[in-house]
């Protein structure tokens, strides 16, 4: 999270840390992302977090044995105190496109149910008509994560530091939703083959400074429903441009969850 603040424990009780250790690669590949708790057994995240990192175009999930989900986690140094769960099943969206990140959404079923409490609670899915249309431009949402908080650091530095350059304490930032056309134009005017589809929305500031970044993927972009005062997951951290996170005129791109409510219900077998 760029330009964010330290969260307090219990601010984001749905926030999950998803740690992946891909044993199929030598040396072992390790990375992480975020997810959002939907129920006692299901966590929503981005498909690219759980996609096997082979350098080809196949979209297959990592082996479920290599995934650990942490809940009620505030400081990543205290993982032992968190609620951890192994995984029973991983479902990547069938149409997830590795080229343009269209349909970047996935589900993780926990092997053992979690018990709800002060630090573990699910986030809501869009259910009302106005929520199912997707977030309106300029609406403010919150997004949290343990990803990069210093935009100047490079990926090589992160890896060489043993990921110590990442945030230990969960960070959060408040971002406005950007007019879809503006974001689309912004990306399509650049060199490179960017595609902002109808399954995505953008959030961020024209002037930069606040943004999500590497390691925040899969975390929920939540907006509070003005009627029920409940927090609803409207987006999932998906991707951004090649520039530094939080750069001017660079918006973060989020999976538009409202387009996938039926898909989630079908896959989880519940409403």
């Amino acid at each position, binding site marked *: 999270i760029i330009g964010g603040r330290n969260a307090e424990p219990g601010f984001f009780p749905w926030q999950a840390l998803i740690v992946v250790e891909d044993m199929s690669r030598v040396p072992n590949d390790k990375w992480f992302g975020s997810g959002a708790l939907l129920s006692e057994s299901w966590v929503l995240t981005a498909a690219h977090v759980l996609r096997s990192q082979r350098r080809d175009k196949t979209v297959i999930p990592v082996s479920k044995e290599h995934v650990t989900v942490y809940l009620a986690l505030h400081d990543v140094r205290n993982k032992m105190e968190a609620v951890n769960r192994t995984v029973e099943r991983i479902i990547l969206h069938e149409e997830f496109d590795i080229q343009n990140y269209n349909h970047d959404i996935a589900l993780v079923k926990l092997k053992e149910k979690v018990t*709800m409490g002060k630090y573990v609670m699910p986030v*809501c*899915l869009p259910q009302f008509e106005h929520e199912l249309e997707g977030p309106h431009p300029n609406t403010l949402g919150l997004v949290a994560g343990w990803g990069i908080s210093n935009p100047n650091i490079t990926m090589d530095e992160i890896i060489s530091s043993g990921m110590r350059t990442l945030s230990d304490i969960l960070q959060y930032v408040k971002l406005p939703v950007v007019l879809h056309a503006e974001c689309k134009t912004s990306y399509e005017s650049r060199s490179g083959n960017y595609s902002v589809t109808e399954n995505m929305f953008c959030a961020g500031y024209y002037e930069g400074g606040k943004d999500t970044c590497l390691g925040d993927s899969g975390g929920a972009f*939540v907006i509070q429903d003005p009627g029920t005062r*409940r*927090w609803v997951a409207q987006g999932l951290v998906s991707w951004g441009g090649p520039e530094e996170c939080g750069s001017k005129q660079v918006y973060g791109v989020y999976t538009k969850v409202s387009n996938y409510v039926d898909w989630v219900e079908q896959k989880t077998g519940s409403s």
Partner: protein
Amino acid sequence: DAVELTDMFGEIQSPNFPDSYPSDSEMTWNISVPDGFKIKLYFMHFDLESSYLCEYDYVKIETEDQELATFCGRETTDTEQAPGQQAILSPGPYMGLTFRSDFSNEERFTGFDAHYTAVDVDECLEKSDEELACDHYCHNYIGGYYCSCRFGYILHSDNRTCKVECSDNLYTQRSGVITSADFPSPYPKSSDCLYRIELEEGFFITLNFEDSFDVEDHPKVTCPYDHIKIKAGQKEFGPFCGEKSPGRIETQTNSVQIRFHSDNSGENRGWKLSYTAIGNPCPLVQPPINGKIEPSQAKYTFKDQVVVSCNTGYKVLKDNAESDSFQIECLKDGTWSNKIPVCKIADCKAPPELEHGFVTFSTRNNLTTYQAAIQYHCQHPYYHMAPNSTATYTCDALGQWRSEELGTKLPSCRPVCGRPARPLPGIIKR
């Protein structure tokens, strides 16, 4: 010197015919035809000396025991008969014809020329005697006849009367009606009927003959023709016949044999009886507290059954097993098969646990019996109840916790979404 004639037809002529017959002559012809035929005789020519009462010459026609006619002369006068055109018919298959002439003849007389033929007897028309006639149907044929019976009857070995097969009638119900065959029409002849009533040991059979009773009898001899005899264990009743009903007979046994015999004559309407059986009485039973017994009777006897059931909210408890009802039966020795069970109030027992929820009892002393109420709650604020926010269950009559909305299903406690226990910081305007 008799001439034996056995052909089915033939001719008989006086001696020397057509010349005059000799004086002082006597000849006999015996005509025999098979049974079932008669003999018809007629004269084509007749010319005998006439005398008072045919004292001199005559032709006499007779059967074995009866004279049919005596003819003489040429024509019939006041005292003598000549056959003329008249044919003589024998009653049976035999006819004898005797010709006699005395020692002198006043004139020349040419004698007679007679012919005979066998004629079939229609026994169906002629046998009016009840002892000989067919009981149901009669069929004539040339030389004889035979009898047949209506459907359901069998021709008796006398080839005349029609009997019925009625030797294997078994009654096993506790009550019933028995009648002679065809009642109230006359019962079949030549029949021996057996009616058995066989009930379980412990029953006592009572027979009750209806007043309408008609069995052939004799004014002086006891039931020589038709009769009913009843055997009940070691006892025997009857024979019964006549028009006076035997009325009510208490046999004091569970096995009765009724034999009915009819001979080959008579037209009597028969009999009808109803029978009932009762067993040893059992003591009266009282319904349990909060229960009832059905059917409720003033008296219970062998085989009677009562069903014990309990009022709504109570269960029958017998030998530590609960059930909706319990049945007992009156035994042949006059005791009940079981004691009356007690009625125990239905108990839903401890309500099932609700995941992420808990139960509160709405009734004092945490009662779990019939009509007690409980309420399920979810662990607030992290779980909420679905489908409703409250779930009240009442212990029903079947001993199950039941809610109006969900029946016996439990509600579920679902996680509350989107509500952090710790409120997020307010929005800071830029």
